C-alpha cells in the first residue's frame, strides 16, 4: 500500500513539474493542481497510513486512530491552495486579456541602449 | 402572509424528512430543528422558485412511483441482456419523438426523468417551445410503440397528478 501511495505521489509530482515548465499559463495551472494533489497526499502520508482508523473519537470501541494532525494541515493546505488557484486563474485571464495570448514567458522589450 | 412563511409547503415537508434522514435519528430536538430549517430554507430560496407548482392529485404519485420502480427493474434486465449478449450490429437504436400534452414544467421534468431512469430510453431534447420530447431508444424495432407506451403509461398518469 505504501508503495502505491508513494508512487502515486511521485507520478503526480513528476506530471506537475513537467506541466509547470510549459510555456502557456493553462498547463501551468494544471501542473500546479497536480502538484497540489501530490503535496496533499504527501502531507497526509506523513502521519503514516492506517486503514479504517479515522480520527473520530469512539467511546464504544477500543480502536486506534490515525494521526489527525497531518489531516488538519492538509485541510488548511487545500483551502489555501484553492484560494491561490483562484487567484492564479484570474491572473491568467488578466494577462491573457491584456496581452492577447496566454504565453507565460515575458519577452524582454529591447530598449534604447547605452547610458552615457 | 402564510405564503411568505411557507412559500413551498411540500418542500418544507420534504426538507424536514431530509433532515431526519441526515441526522438519522428522530428526536424532538431534531424534529424541531428540521422543522425550523424546513421553514427557513424555502424562505431563503423562494426568490429562485417563483410561483408554486400545483399538484391536483398528490396521492397518485405513490402508484406512479411504484410503477416506475417496477419498470426500472424489468427494463434493467432487458437492457443488461442487450448489452451483454446482443452483437453490436444487431442493436437497432431509434429516435422517438414524443409530442407532449403536459405543459407544467414540473410535469415535463418528471416525465423526461422517468423516461431516462427507465433503462432503454433516454430523454435527449425538448423542443424549444416545450411541446415535444426527443427520446433515444436503445433497441427497438417499433418506435411508434415506444412513443405510445410513454404517452399512455407515464404521461397520462402524470397528467392526472399535475392536472
Amino acid at each position, binding site marked *: 500500500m505504501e508503495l502505491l501511495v508513494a508512487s502515486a505521489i511521485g507520478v503526480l509530482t513528476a506530471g506537475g513539474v513537467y506541466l509547470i515548465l510549459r510555456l502557456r499559463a493553462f498547463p501551468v495551472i494544471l501542473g500546479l493542481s497536480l502538484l497540489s494533489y501530490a503535496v496533499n497526499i504527501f502531507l497526509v502520508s506523513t502521519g503514516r497510513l492506517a486503514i479504517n482508523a479515522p480520527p473520530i473519537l469512539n467511546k464504544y470501541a477500543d480502536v486506534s486512530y490515525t494521526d489527525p*494532525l497531518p489531516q488538519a494541515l492538509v485541510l488548511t493546505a487545500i483551502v489555501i491552495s484553492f484560494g491561490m488557484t483562484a487567484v492564479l486563474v484570474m491572473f491568467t485571464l488578466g494577462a491573457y486579456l491584456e496581452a492577447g495570448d496566454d504565453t507565460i514567458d515575458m519577452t524582454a522589450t529591447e530598449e534604447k541602449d547605452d547610458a*552615457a | 402572509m402564510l405564503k411568505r412563511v411557507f412559500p413551498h409547503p411540500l418542500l418544507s415537508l420534504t426538507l424536514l424528512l431530509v433532515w431526519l434522514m441526515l441526522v438519522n435519528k428522530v428526536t424532538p430536538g431534531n424534529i424541531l430543528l428540521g422543522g425550523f430549517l424546513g421553514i427557513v430554507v424555502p424562505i431563503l430560496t423562494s426568490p429562485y422558485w417563483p410561483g408554486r407548482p400545483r399538484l391536483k392529485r398528490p396521492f397518485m404519485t405513490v402508484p406512479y412511483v411504484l410503477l416506475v420502480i417496477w419498470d426500472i427493474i424489468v427494463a434493467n434486465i432487458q437492457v443488461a441482456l442487450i448489452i451483454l449478449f446482443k452483437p453490436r450490429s444487431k442493436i437497432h437504436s431509434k429516435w422517438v419523438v414524443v409530442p407532449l400534452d403536459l405543459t407544467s414544467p414540473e410535469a415535463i421534468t418528471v416525465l423526461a426523468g422517468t423516461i431516462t431512469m427507465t433503462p432503454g430510453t433516454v430523454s435527449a431534447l425538448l423542443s424549444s417551445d416545450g411541446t415535444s420530447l426527443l427520446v433515444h431508444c436503445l433497441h427497438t424495432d417499433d418506435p411508434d410503440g415506444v412513443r405510445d407506451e410513454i404517452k399512455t403509461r407515464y404521461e397520462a398518469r402524470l397528467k392526472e397528478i399535475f392536472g
Partner: protein
Amino acid sequence: MSHWIIAPVVLPAMMAPLIGYVMRHDIVLARVASAASTVALFIIALGLAVWAADGGTHVYRLGDWPAPFGIVLVLDRLSAMMVLLTATLALIVLWHSIATGWDAKGRHFHALYQFQLMGICGAFLTGDAFNLFVFFEVLLIASYGLMVHSGGKVRMQAGLQYVVMNLAGSTLFLFALGTMYATTGTLNMADLAVKVPQIAAEDSGMVRVAAVLLLIVFMIKAALFPVQFWLPGTYSNAPAPVAALFAIMTKVGAYAIIRLHTLAFHPGAEPTKDVVTTWLFPAAMVTLALGALGVLAAKRLMPLLSFSVIGSMGTMMLAVAPVDPYATETALYYLVHSTFSAAALFLLADLVVSRRGSDVLDARPPVVQNGLFAALFFAAAIAMAGMPPLSGFLGKLLILDALREPELMPWAWTGILVGSLVTIVGFARAGSMIFWKSTSVKLPEGTEPIQSDPPPAPARGTEVAPVMMLLALLVGLAVLAGPATGYMRAAANQLFEPSGYIDSVLAPVEKPEKAKADPPLDAADPHAEEEH
C-alpha cells in the same frame, strides 16, 4: 501573558475587512482608517520592541494550549525588531501611496495593504513552522493583489509570473514541512530544536532533506540564487509603493533562515549541521554577483533598483551564512539598512518616473525639480551602494569585519567590494543619464514637447516627505549605529542562546480543566451506536 503580542496580527486583520467591505466605496474613510491602523501598529510595535529589549522570550499561547501542541507566538528581540521595521516602513510607504494617489488607482488597496501587514507581522511573530507557512500565504496572496494594483499589460504578465513562482515555492514549502513532521513528529520550532538533534546520525537523511528544502523555500523569498529570478520582474513592474513595501518581503525569507538556523537546525544540531553552511554561502555569493551585474546591465531604472535589491540580499546573506552571533548581528544591521534604502529608492523612482513618463535610461528632457530629485537619488543610491556617510557603508564594513573565516574571507571580501564598485558604477551611469544628461537634451526648434496633459506637476512636500523620512532613518541608523548594533548584538546573542527560547516556549503550563460538563460521548456523536 500579554495580549499585545498578537495585536500586530489582529489589528490589521480586523481593520482590513472593515476597510475592504464597509468602507469600500469611500476612499477618504479608507485612507483614514488605514493610516490610523498603521499608526497604531507602529506604536504597538514600538512598545513591543521596548518590551522585548528586556531580553526575555515572551510567549503567547494561542487558544491557551501548551506548546508544542497549540500554536504559539514568540516575541523576542529579533521578532520585535522585525515587526517594528515592518510597521515603520509600512507607515512611510502608506503615506507615499496616499500622497501620490496610488491607492486610488485600483480597488481595495488599503484592505490588501492591511492584510499584507497582518501576514508579515504574523510571519515574524509565529513560533510554529506550519503557521509560518500559513502567514507566508497570507502575505503572499495580499502581495499578489498589491502587485497588480491598478492593472496594466506588463504588470499583469509580471504578476502572473510572480504568482506562479510563489505557488511553486509554497508547494515546496509544504513538501518540506511534511518531511519535517514525518521525521520529528512536531511543528513547533522550539520543539524542533529539541527533536532534531535527537535524531540519530544513522537516520539523518530525511531530516536533512527537510532542512535543505526549507532553506530553498526561504531562499525564494530572500531572492537568492538560483531562485532569485522572480524578483526583477516583480519589483520592476509592481506599483512603486508596493515595490517599496516589498523591501520587507525579501527580509521575511532572510528572517526565516536566521530563525530556523539558530533554532531547529542550530549549529549544534548534528544531523543538519552542514546543510546551511554548504549552500547558503555560495548562493549568497552568486546572488551578490548577479545583483551587481544586473545593476550594471540595466537599461531601465526599475530593473536597476530591483537588481540592487538582489545584490543587497546577497550581501546580507553572506553574513547570515556563517551562522555565528557577530555575523548575524551585522546581517541584522544590514537588513534594516537595506530595507529602508530600497524603499527610498523605489519611492523616489516613483516620483521621478511618474513625471518623466518612462523609466528607460535614455536621454529625455529633465523632469521638474530635477535638482531636488537628483540630490535625493544621489543620497539613496549611495546608501544602497554602500558608500558613506549613510548606513550602507557601515553595514558593509560590519559584514566585512564579521567575515574573517579564512575560507570565506577572500570570496566574501572580493564579492562585496567588487560588487559595491559595480553597483556604484551602475548607479552613476543611471543617475547621470536621468539627472545630468537630461539637462543637455534640447528639443529641436518648433517641435512641441510630447508631454502628458496636463504637464506633470512638481512634487508637493507631502509627496517628497516619505523619501526624506527614509533617508533620515538611514542617517539615524548611521549616526546611532552604536545603540542600534547594541540592540542587534543582544538580539543575535539571544538567537544563539536558544535555550531561553526553547525553555520559554515549552515551559509546562497549568491548564484549567476546560470541559465544564462531561456528558456521555454519544450525546455528541449520533453515530456512536452504529459503530459498535
